[in-house]
Every structure is written in structure tokens, then in C-alpha cells.
């Protein structure tokens, strides 16, 4: 019973936040920031599954975001696919690639996945930068319109571009969080958490450690890919920055900062790291400094991440 409420509580809080905050928006710009938080939150939810549940670290998830993003740019023009199907195609390619990269690597213990994904992310970024004829190179490439906003308008629901993407990404995040929370309660999720604790112990009780790790990696790659697609469709333009190494680091940082073990915590982390640069524009030169300092303080004093630690304090329950 309490477990069930934890899941619905998380989803309820998320849904309420998404629905209520627009009433406090002083201008349309905040819809844009909200949509970015949700997209980042979605990618970071994938990291929660991989890092928080299974204890594996990926330093190349931006590569999957890049695949998802460029699928939306390229598939509609070259294959004639509808942009919504391009999202699915991107996710499928990301999943397959994650499987191929992860299958040999995840048989090993330790940080091999971090190193392998690091290489993978850089490879994707290089391909996007250098295959100029196809990807437009460093200058980026235009992404076709999703067209859903026009459809909604025909049905009598007239949203501004900012509002549409705010709610669209909000719903995507809710679905993503719902799946991640369900996974947490499922046998697979329990197996993941078991191997996070100890791979040997998990193996001894009959968990196929390599297979379960691979599952988590593939699922999280799909999350990153869909998030990348949503950014591309929203911006109607994409550059290889989306697949850059810094973007990979950013995702891990968001998860760790907010609390990699908790979906809501990680989304909270995504929110902070998306808002901070916007709030710090006046001190743009010190932005990296402040970010670094926040990270260090969180790592030293709140090792579970911001949200879980704060909640624990609030409940007055130490461990």
C-alpha cells in the first residue's frame, strides 16, 4: 500500500506542477523554459533507470539524443516519414545501437560502460559534424514542423507555440516518469536495484546480471533519444551541440544533483540546472563557477542528491 501511493504521489505532484505553474507565468517565455525542463527531465529519467536503479554510468547519452534529434531532421525529408514516426525511428535506432554497444561491455564489471559510452558519444558527435552533405555539419539543419499544433487548432484548441510545447513535453515527461516508476516496482526493477547493491549477490540469487543491465541501458537510451527528438521538433532546427560531450555530462549532473535514485529528484535536478543559467545571465561569466560549486556542495553534504536528502531532513528520519 505505501509503495503504491509513493508512485501515484510522484505522478500527482508532477501533474499538478505541470498544470498549475502556468498560472504564475508573467510572460510566454516561461512556457519555453518549462518545456526545456520537461525535455531535460525526460532524458534524466532515463539516467535514473540506468544510474539510479542499475548503478551504471553513461557518459555518452547525448549521442542518443543526437540520433533522436537528427532522425526528426532527416527521416521526413529523405524517407518521407511523418515527424512523429521519425521519433519512433530514432528511438528504435538508439535502442539497437545501445544494445550493440552495451551487449559486450555490460558483461564486464566496473566503469567499462562509462568509457565505452564516452567513445560512442564522441563518435556520434563527429559523424554529425563531418557528414556535411547529410547533416548540414556544424551549422545545423532545419527540422520539419510536427503539425500537431495546427491539428489541435482545427479542433478548437488554439495554443501558442510556447504553450503547445510546454504541455506536449509535460505530457511526455509524465508518461516517461510513469513508465520509470512502474519499472521500479516490477521484477526487472527489483533485479536492477539488487545488482546496484551487489552484482555478485544479485547473480547468486539467480538474476541474469548482464541481461538486466543491458535492458536498463537500452531503455535509458530510448529516453534520451525521445528527448532529443522533442528538442529538435520544438526548435525546428538542430545543431550537433545536442550530441556534444558537455550535454552528456549535463544529463548525468542533473540526475546526480537532484537525486539519481528518485525520478522526482532527478527531474528536480533537471529543473535547477535548466533554470540556473537563465537566472544567472547577469553573471554569465561566473555561471560555470556557481554550477561547479553547487555540484561540490551537493556531493559533499547531500550525497543522495538534493531532493531525497531534503525530504529526509523534512521527515526528520536519519539513516
Amino acid at each position, binding site marked *: 500500500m505505501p509503495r503504491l501511493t509513493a508512485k501515484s504521489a510522484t505522478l500527482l505532484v508532477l501533474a499538478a506542477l505541470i498544470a498549475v505553474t502556468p498560472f504564475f507565468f508573467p510572460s510566454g517565455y516561461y512556457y*519555453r523554459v518549462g518545456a526545456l525542463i520537461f525535455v531535460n527531465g525526460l532524458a534524466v529519467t532515463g539516467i535514473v533507470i540506468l544510474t539510479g536503479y542499475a548503478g551504471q554510468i553513461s557518459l555518452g547519452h547525448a549521442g542518443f539524443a543526437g540520433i533522436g534529434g537528427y532522425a526528426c531532421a532527416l527521416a521526413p525529408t529523405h524517407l518521407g516519414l511523418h515527424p512523429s514516426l521519425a521519433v519512433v525511428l530514432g528511438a528504435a535506432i538508439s535502442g539497437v545501437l545501445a544494445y550493440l554497444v552495451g551487449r559486450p561491455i555490460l558483461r564486464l564489471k566496473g566503469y567499462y560502460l562509462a568509457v565505452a559510452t564516452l567513445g560512442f558519444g564522441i563518435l556520434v558527435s563527429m559523424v554529425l*559534424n563531418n557528414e*556535411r552533405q547529410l547533416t548540414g555539419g556544424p551549422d545545423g539543419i532545419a527540422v520539419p514542423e510536427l503539425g500537431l499544433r495546427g491539428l489541435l487548432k482545427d479542433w478548437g484548441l488554439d495554443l501558442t507555440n510556447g504553450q503547445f510545447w510546454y504541455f506536449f513535453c509535460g505530457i511526455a515527461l509524465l508518461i516517461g516518469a510513469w513508465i520509470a516508476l512502474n519499472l521500479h516496482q516490477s521484477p526487472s526493477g527489483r533485479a536492477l536495484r539488487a545488482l546496484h547493491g551487489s552484482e555478485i549477490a544479485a547473480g547468486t540469487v539467480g538474476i541474469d546480471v548482464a541481461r538486466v543491465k543491458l535492458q536498463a541501458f537500452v531503455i535509458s537510451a530510448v529516453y534520451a533519444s525521445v528527448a532529443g527528438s522533442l528538442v529538435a521538433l520544438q526548435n525546428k532546427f538542430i545543431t550537433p551541440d545536442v550530441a556534444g560531450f558537455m550535454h552528456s555530462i549535463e544529463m548525468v549532473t542533473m540526475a546526480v544533483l537532484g537525486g539519481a535514485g528518485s525520478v522526482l529528484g532527478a527531474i528536480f535536478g533537471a529543473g535547477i540546472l535548466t533554470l540556473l543559467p537563465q537566472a544567472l*545571465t547577469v553573471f554569465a561569466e561566473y555561471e560555470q563557477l556557481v554550477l561547479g560549486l553547487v555540484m561540490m556542495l551537493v556531493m559533499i553534504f547531500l550525497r543522495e542528491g538534493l531532493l531525497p536528502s531534503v525530504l529526509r531532513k523534512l521527515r526528520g528520519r536519519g539513516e
Partner: protein
Amino acid sequence: MKKTLTTTVPAALIALGLAGAASAEIKIGASVSATGPAAFLGDPEAKTLEMLVEETNAKGGINGEQIALVLYDDGGDANKARTFATRLIEDDEVQAIIGGTTTGTSMSILSVAEDAEIPFISLAGAIDIIQPVKPFTFKTPHTDRMACQKIFEDMQKSGIQKIGMISGTDGFGASMQAQCKDVVGEYGIEIAADETYDPKDADMTAQLTKIRNTAGVQAVLNPGFGQGPSIVTRNYRQLGIELPLYQSHGVASDGFIELAGKAAAEGVRLPGTALLVADLLAEDDPQKPVVTAYKAAFEGKFKEPVGTFGGYAHDGFALLVDAVTRAGSAEPAAIRDALEQTSGLAGTTGIYTMSPEDHLGLDLSAFRMLEVKDGSWSIVE
């Protein structure tokens, strides 16, 4: 996790996002890449804009109204640039935007500006920004294609028919390489060798040796910016290649001669702007007063040499001031109409004459073919 989740999240969301905005008569927004990989373009742009706004306000503003500049640093990230463009338009409610240091950031900003019908003056090179013409988007830098044309024109005059190219794989180099290959046929010139290098490479002798050994090459062209072209120039002399070497407008600055070394840079030709040769311009050159004034002000204030890129921001601001003055209004639509009617405005990059079909307003005469002579720039007649 239980039901005790607090409502601190929305409060934090709002508190963090609120930023004070000073009210002023004319509000100009800017999003440039003052940090990140394109900082060497964006930093002088940001400095130039801040300096010019201060100057204009001290002189009483435009039409008696003061200017407020809202400047953001997008770090060269297209996604961030789009967010800042949205912020400038929706939150800061600016009347016009200058910025978009790189092609990627410009393309992001222009789609937001076009949707909101706010005039946008881009500072990036690619031709796609203004072709096809978009009603609210203008730009100040000449295109890569024009740089290629200027170079090939000069080669044609010297009777060069077969060349080798060595290009950087960064955005600038790759884009110019593509444009040059596209336009080279019109000049009856053939690219016999086409090499590339990574902008971080420390040695290009291998590529240059290959070009040297290609039969019939009469000149070498190196599109790229940053330190790459300086290394190419030094390696070129080390290998003892005697053919004429052409660089791009990407390295049109005194910094290039310093980095490559005066001896190695000797004889290098490139298409540059009047800004670089301010002292050598004829007294009756319409660009002379503009260029000397900007150079003196910038170098006096920041103690660093002016460059072509800061000049782009100067021209963007000058176009805007000119448009607002002529329109007698700072309404976005009025600014747009006036921008399109810009005629004979002397900037640092060239003389701008816009039209509904041309939102760049420069022709090849904006470029001057420069050559390094005795360690400094000279104009090739």
C-alpha cells in the same frame, strides 16, 4: 517517498526565473556567443554593442530616446540561443534583436523573431540566413560565397587556373569550402587538390606536401579561422612552397600575422574589410570616417585590436540606429520597413543598400583584397 512532498518546487521555479528588467524608451536585445567555442567572434561583438549603446546614449540617444541593451550570452549553443530569443521577445519585450554569432544560433533566433515579427539583424556568415529572404531577418557580414568570389576574381586576374584547397573542418572552414567548390567553376578555375585538417591539429605538412606534389597547382587557398591558418602558413614556408597562398576573411586580423610570424605571412593574400586597413584608405573613401572612429573608440576602451567580427556588430547597430532615426519610431514593423530601405549606409564591413530582395545589402566591393607586405596589411589594387 510519501505524500509529504512540499510545494517548494513552483516557488523556486518562479523565484529563480524572475529577473529585473529596467524600463527604457528603445529596447534592443542581443544574444551573442561571448563564451564557448565561438567566443573569439562573440566577445568583440558583445563589447562593441555595449560600447556603442553607451556612446549613443551619451550623445542623447536616438530621436531623443535612450537605448536599453539587453545582452545574453548563448555560448554558441543553438538551443540556448532560441531560449534567449524567446526571452528577449516575450519577457524583455525588445523592439529589435541583434546577434546570432554563429550560423546555428542565427537560424534558431530567426525562426523565433519571424514568428513574433521582430526585426533581427544576424551577425553570422551563411547565405541561408537571408536566402530565401525572410521579412524580418537581415544580416551584416558578407557571405562565404562572396569571399570565395573575391578570391577567385583575384586569381583569375593573375591567370591562375588550377588550385589546391586546404580547409578547416570547423563550421567556418567547412561552410566556405563548400561555397568555394560551388562557385569555382564560374571562374574557369579547377580545384586539383582538396585537403582538410582538424582545427585542433598542430601540423599540416602532410596535407600541404600532398598539394605540393599535385601536378599543375598554381595557388593554394585555405578557408578556416582560429590558429589553423597560421599553422598552415608556417608549414607552407617551412616546406618552401613558392606558390601564392590565399587565406580567408576568417583570419583578417593583425593577430594572424603575429601568430604565423611576419616572415611566414609575407605575401599572403586575403579578402578583408576596410577596418583592417583604416589608415591606408583614401581620404575621400566613404568608409574612412566610420572605420577610424570605431577603431579609435574600441582600441581606446578595450586595449585590444579591432577585428572584422566586432565590426559586424558595429554595422548591425549602425543599421538599426539609422533605421529607427529614419522611421521616427521604434515600432518593430516600422524598424523593419526602414531597415529594408537602408541606402548607402557606410559601415565597417562595406556600404549597405538593402532592398526587399536583398537583406544583406553588400556586394563584392565590400571586400578589399589585402596582402601582407613588410609585416603589415596593404591593399592590392
